[in-house]
């Protein structure tokens, strides 16, 4: 069985508030002093895949795929340290903030390319959303591009008899589904798919595992359109909301007067916000 996990490298969401800056012209966050990390839901996806392989008894090959800058190699190395078998980086050029449509198309092209070389992927795992933009569309777009059935908010995969049992989170509870490969799932977090810390030996070994690099030219894609960032939506403006605190004291001689005053002001303020 072949499993593919898609990864995204993002700006550390834990960056201290004061260090978080945005570039209004580029309409994106500035890197500044912040670190780059693997998106947490993508790491949950890696962990879910690893647990699936363990439950299946080993006959599962896991590939990690990323569309990003060369720095994203770190994410793939880390995935391989977590014992993912192989990795592929599609190097991004042009637009640094491609939208989900562009990313989905690049990933789909890359997957087709990888499938040509090594056989079809039975399951494709994508994080449910990224910690930077949080659009949450990549999984859907990718499923559409690949023409595969997809389920969202999956938290675990269990091997069954020729099928895979999926557990997914819904608003009303956990839904269990049987899926025939090939399929795509977006992975959410639960207490069981907390990404593991790699063993040191695996960290060292990760540098000896194959890491394939592809460029957009290697994929049969209209790369001009991809470079432009595609567009299912456009960011018009980006800003950090300013917190304004105004303090006002309810006045009055007696407690009742002050309570009256307070209630009146609350009404006024609520009315003014509309």
């Amino acid at each position, binding site marked *: 069985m072949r499993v593919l996990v898609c990864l995204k490298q993002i700006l*550390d969401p*834990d960056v*201290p*508030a*004061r*260090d978080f800056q945005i570039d209004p012209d580029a309409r994106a966050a500035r890197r500044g*002093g912040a*670190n780059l*990390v693997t998106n947490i839901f993508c790491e949950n996806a890696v962990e879910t895949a690893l647990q699936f392989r363990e439950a299946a008894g080993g006959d599962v090959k896991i590939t990690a795929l990323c569309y990003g800058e060369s720095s994203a190699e770190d994410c793939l190395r880390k995935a391989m340290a977590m014992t993912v078998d192989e990795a592929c980086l599609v190097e991004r050029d042009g637009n640094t903030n491609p939208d989900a449509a562009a990313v989905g198309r690049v990933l789909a092209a890359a997957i087709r390319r990888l499938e040509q070389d090594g056989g079809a992927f039975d399951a494709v795992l994508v994080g449910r959303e990224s910690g930077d933009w949080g659009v949450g569309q990549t999984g859907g777009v990718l499923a559409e591009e690949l023409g595969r059935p997809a389920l969202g908010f999956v938290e675990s995969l269990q091997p069954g008899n020729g099928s895979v049992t999926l557990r997914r989170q819904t608003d009303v509870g956990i839904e269990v589904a049987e899926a025939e490969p090939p399929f795509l799932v977006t992975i959410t977090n639960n207490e069981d798919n907390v990404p*593991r*810390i*790699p*063993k*040191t*030996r695996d*960290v*060292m070994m990760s540098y000896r595992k194959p890491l394939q690099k592809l460029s957009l030219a290697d994929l049969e894609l209209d790369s001009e359109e991809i470079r432009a960032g595609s567009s299912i939506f456009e960011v018009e403006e980006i800003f950090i909301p300013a917190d304004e605190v105004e303090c006002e004291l309810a006045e009055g001689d007696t407690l009742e007067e002050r309570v009256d005053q307070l209630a009146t002001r609350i009404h006024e303020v609520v009315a003014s916000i509309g």
Partner: protein
Amino acid sequence: MFRVGGTVPVMDPTQATREVFWNIEYTWLVYVLMVPTLAVFGWGFWLKIRRWRSGQPALRFDRPGERLQLFLRNAVGQGRTIKRRYAGLFHTLVYTGFIVLFLATTVVAIHHDTPLHIMKGHFYLIFQSLIVDIFGLFVLVGVALAAIRRWISKPKLLVYTDEASWILVTIFVMALTGFMIEGWRIAVTDDPWAAWSPIGNLFALGSDPWMTDTAMQRGHVIIWWFHLVVAFGWIAWVPFSKMSHVFTAPLNIFTANLDGYGGSLKTIDFETAERFGINHLGDFTWKDLLDFDACTECGRCTDVCPANTVGKSLSPRDIILDLQGLMHKRGDEFLGSRAGNGNGDGGNGSGELLPIIDQKTAVSPEALFACTTCAACMEACPVHIEQMPKIVDARRYLVMEEADFPEGMMDMMNSLESRQHPFAGTQFSRVDWTEGLDIDVMAEMDDPHEAEVLMWVGCGGALVERNRNTVRATAKLLKKAGVKFAILGREESCTGDPARRVGNEFLFEMLAKGNVETMERYGVRKVVTSCPHCFNSFRNEYPHFGGSYEVYHHTQFLDQLLESGRLDGNGAGGRSNGSSTITFHDPCYLGRHNGEYDAPRNLLAQVGGARQVEMERSRNTSFCCGGGGGMAFVDEPPDQRVNQERAQEAVDTGADVVAVGCPFCATMLDDGVNARRGDRDVQVRDVAELLWDAVGDSEEAAP
């Protein structure tokens, strides 16, 4: 007068002596019995030595001069043993008694078996009779005191084994029978020098009224042989019991780590290591294996262990004893398990490798991960056993080979890996604290070499709100003294201390190499830091990674500035901050690990109007705040918090200020003091903050 044998009373003291083997026939049997005795004794120690030699190499016979000094102080001089009064007293009695009695036996042997008839005259009377009698009594009294402790008062720190009881019984029997045979010889021979053997004489006088000479003479023969058999049997038993410490302890002290606890962790060669960390006895060094055999079960390590004190399962004594037990049980099976762990030259790796972790509760992951690496155990050990590095060795195995460790440590390591600091979720950057202080950052300086010293801020100083005041105070004091200093700012990374203590040597090495590279780029030679953990890494660990610096803890540097007059102090006449009593909590990594106790106290003397009081456990016996060894990142069970135990001790001194010199101690004790201070106003302040209050520019005095 009825007399047996050839003793002739001659009242000339220069001729005083006694007959060796009086009343004893078949004396050749003594020599015959000695052969198997010494053979078993030798075989026993040979087994031990063979076992030790199967360990990995360690350099522990270098610097003979220093080793001899340590040997004289703590082996011969019992320097550490006597630190506990009761145990120190009885051990000294038995120990000195044994030495004197051994010398006496040697004198007898020389006198009898060589042409040198030395056992006569004043030497016979004063040493061989009087002094030997007194020290024989010491043994009896010492053993009695030990027995009272073991059988009546029963302190928690002891291990109650039959072996230990038998040791007391047999020593007591040997000493007692010695006096019996001496007494009966005196009585029967009517020894004219009886008065010089007061205890033997007491037995003589006690026996005389109710025993006939014949009975005494017959009793003498029986007890004499009984004494000999017990003594020989005992000697043969020594290598197989904890009495072997008579030899292993001095050897262990001679081969002790001379570099201080702060430099006691091994480095790993990741290129060649077959395994990371230790989960097999054969991966320990010979010195580690010797440690196991040197243990006397005194329990002081566990008694002072902070984790054990608050009720956690960690017991350094039991770790050593459990490993000793496994080592003894395994014999050749164990010898076959030799293999390389990167500390040495590798090995043949033959035989099945028997794991040590989880074989016994003392070496369970839970116990191992309770260690704060405070080194109180090592400081307390009378025979210099190195418990803490072994705990870290085992943690390394769990962390690097098994990826098995507490959750808090996992978050910390994740953060270290992706952000180079352990405080995930901090709201601060590394330079936020400098706001308004105009501090040079090396990367922004035209010539970074202009900086006389690098102020290493540390993650705990820059990223934890509570400690930013400490680094601000330190920086302001440096400025006031006119010190040209700079910081690395965003280029600073964690030194790797928490990773190393937890057992992630790989991560530590990466961080260390990165920092060494950065500092190399700016030609840093001198470092001052307010974090004792960073201080220890720079001082003791970075030299292994190519980074050698002149390193100061901020209290040391400020103390020097005061002393040299660069920083204008006012003697004890600094401003008062309103506190009347200050108690200083020694950080483990400044005090015990690196031997600095006075600098922070000197600085506190500057605080006007306040007197210093000491906690019961201070200086080298200081009690950890609970934050070392990565424990600052672990949630402790509410009823097992080391910081509260320590805070209580601080609060109990009556002090209104608990002074600290470490960002981890500051946060740990802040929490602890708030939980334990009751209605009292007790503050936790760094020494630098207090010093700034006292001698800083008044309008800027810290709040």
